[in-house]
């Protein structure tokens, strides 16, 4: 009834290329941004801002990065957390060694450093595919974790191997409160998400998708495989690197290399799969789902928690988490983004479907 595009004519090329061609979508998106930028900082409490919403945003960014590589270009990666680690440690080392650099610049450097490492570990993708490639990215995962643990230079010879992010100040303003940190993350994530959305609609994104669908056919129609695959690795790693820097600076403040272990990589892959492969919106939905699910399970088990020991509950959480993942993959393997699409299609005909 309300979700009809009847009478909305596209009269210019710009209108035809719009991200949200339907007016209702544009309104909804504007409302969403308004809620995220104004309502949430005003209404949400410290716990929600610091421990739920900020990590959701940081993970969304990492998930967008992985989605570019796995969802759009079809290169399976199990090393996402390693690229995040590169970002976090690059930003830290730059700040420690050159304290004059503003932290936003060091975030960009973090992304660039991760992109460089990403290209390096993306080189095998020119020759190997599928799960064999996943193992090459696992090599990156284990090697980088080992490097940051064993080479003291990267942690500035901290004895515990833990790095502590220096305070973030911009033009005299110090990002200390939960609200300011949330808003900082939100700004970066929104800008980078819009960039990603536009990238995947451009020539580059279409080349990525052609490679995903069949790389030999893509090569035959004149797509430069090497360039396309390596840009996918670079862009994806850039996003992961910035996410890693945000994770270290904005979310936790202190990180150890073990925070970026292979389980973190799996977690981000879960977000991409549950959210929907090849969807920017899905990256956000998946990140929210995976971050919120354990919190939800923990609260739910708290209700009848008295009868069970804390250890049993921790194990039951694993059982429920694993079970839900499987159920989800069986019911809708194309993820939450696909469910959202189905809802929109139904809504167009509601309440009078043919």
């Amino acid at each position, binding site marked *: 009834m309300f979700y009809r595009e009847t009478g909305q004519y596209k009269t210019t090329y710009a209108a035809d290329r719009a991200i949200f061609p339907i007016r209702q979508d544009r309104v909804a998106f504007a409302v969403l941004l308004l809620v995220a930028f104004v309502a949430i900082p005003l209404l949400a409490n410290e716990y929600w801002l610091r421990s739920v919403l900020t990590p959701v945003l940081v993970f969304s960014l990492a998930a967008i990065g992985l989605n570019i590589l*796995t969802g759009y270009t079809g290169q*399976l990666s199990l090393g996402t957390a390693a690229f995040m680690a590169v970002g976090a440690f690059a930003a830290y080392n730059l700040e420690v060694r050159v304290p004059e650099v503003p932290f936003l610049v060091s975030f960009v450097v973090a992304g660039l450093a991760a992109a460089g490492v990403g290209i390096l570990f993306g080189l*095998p993708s020119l*020759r*190997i*595919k*599928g*799960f*064999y490639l996943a*193992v*090459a990215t*696992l*090599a990156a995962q*284990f*090697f980088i*974790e*080992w490097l940051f*643990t*064993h*080479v003291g230079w990267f942690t500035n010879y901290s004895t515990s191997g833990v790095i502590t992010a220096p305070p973030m100040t911009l033009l005299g303003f110090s990002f200390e409160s939960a609200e300011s940190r949330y808003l900082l993350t939100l700004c970066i994530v929104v800008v980078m998400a819009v960039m990603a959305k536009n990238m995947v609609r451009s020539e580059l994104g279409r080349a990525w998708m052609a490679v995903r669908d*069949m790389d*030999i*056919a893509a090569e*035959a129609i004149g797509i430069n495989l090497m360039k396309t695959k390596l840009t996918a690795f670079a862009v994806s790693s850039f996003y992961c690197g910035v996410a890693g820097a945000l994770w270290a600076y904005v979310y936790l403040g202190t990180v150890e290399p073990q925070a970026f272990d*292979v389980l973190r990589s*799996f977690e981000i*892959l*879960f977000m991409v*799969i549950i959210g929907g*492969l090849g969807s920017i919106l899905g990256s956000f939905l998946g990140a929210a789902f995976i971050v919120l699910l354990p919190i939800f399970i923990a609260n739910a088990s708290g209700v009848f928690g008295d009868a069970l020991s804390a*250890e*049993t509950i921790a*194990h*039951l*959480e*694993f*059982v*429920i*988490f*694993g*079970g*839900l*993942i*499987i159920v989800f*993959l*069986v019911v809708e*393997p194309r993820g939450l983004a696909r469910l959202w699409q189905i809802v929109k299609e139904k809504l167009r005909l509601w309440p009078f479907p043919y």
Partner: protein
Amino acid sequence: MDELYFFLEVLIGGLLSGTMYSLVALGFVLIYKASGIFNFAQGTMVLFAALTFVGVLELGAPALLAAVITLAVMVVLAFAVERLVFRHMVNQPQVILFMATIGLAYFLEGLGQTVWGTEVHVLDLGIPDRGLWLGPILVSQFDLVAAAVVAGLVGALGVFFRTTTMGRALRGVADDHQAALSIGIPLHHVWVAVWSVAGFVALVAGLVWGSKLGVQFSISLVALKAIPVMIIGGFTSIPGAIVGGLIVGASEKLAEVYLGPFVGGGLENWFPYMLAMLVLMVRPEGLFGEKIIERV
């Protein structure tokens, strides 16, 4: 001369421990061969089988009965996995199936520890764990026994695959799902069978690893060692899993001993992966894998 003996000792120790990686890699290869599923839960299945075995043993059952009961549990698990998960996921992309097995790994890990607890169980199968001098070279007796078990298992699986009807069906399915279906091989039964066999291999691996390290959560991490083994050997080759295990076992021990002191140790975690990556650069399908042929 001592240098040479030391080198040989490290090499043989590495080769023998490598066969134990092969044991876990074998489970991966079996399932991949018959269904194209990269089963990340294999490591957890090893843990789950070992936990169940020890749990039943501690209830007072004799070892043989405990083994039979555990095997029965693994077969039930195979049925459940096929019926509840993979039957509904035919024709999905491989990455989705892979994620489902990670979900399964979480599920089994939680379930096993909920039922049997988290404390480290000691598992004593009566395998002697003393050094044995072969001339001037010291070899672990335990590793020798484990290597013999692996050799026996691979032999038995080889006979099973070559001669029995089910083995032939498995090879048929591995070659081509569609062709196998069209000549009347029941795909679902075959999948249950192969998951059961993988469960059996997991049980053997769980017993060997469990009596080496104690039955605890960390034995599921052995799977991470088995992945490069399988990659080097090739996803689809049982002999490949053995050769890969030998290569990984020997090279990681040699690297740890001869390169480790220069870089601060801890190479064992990533060295096999780097090696696997280098092998893949030369042979993209692993040493013994089937050649990948692609057409547009």
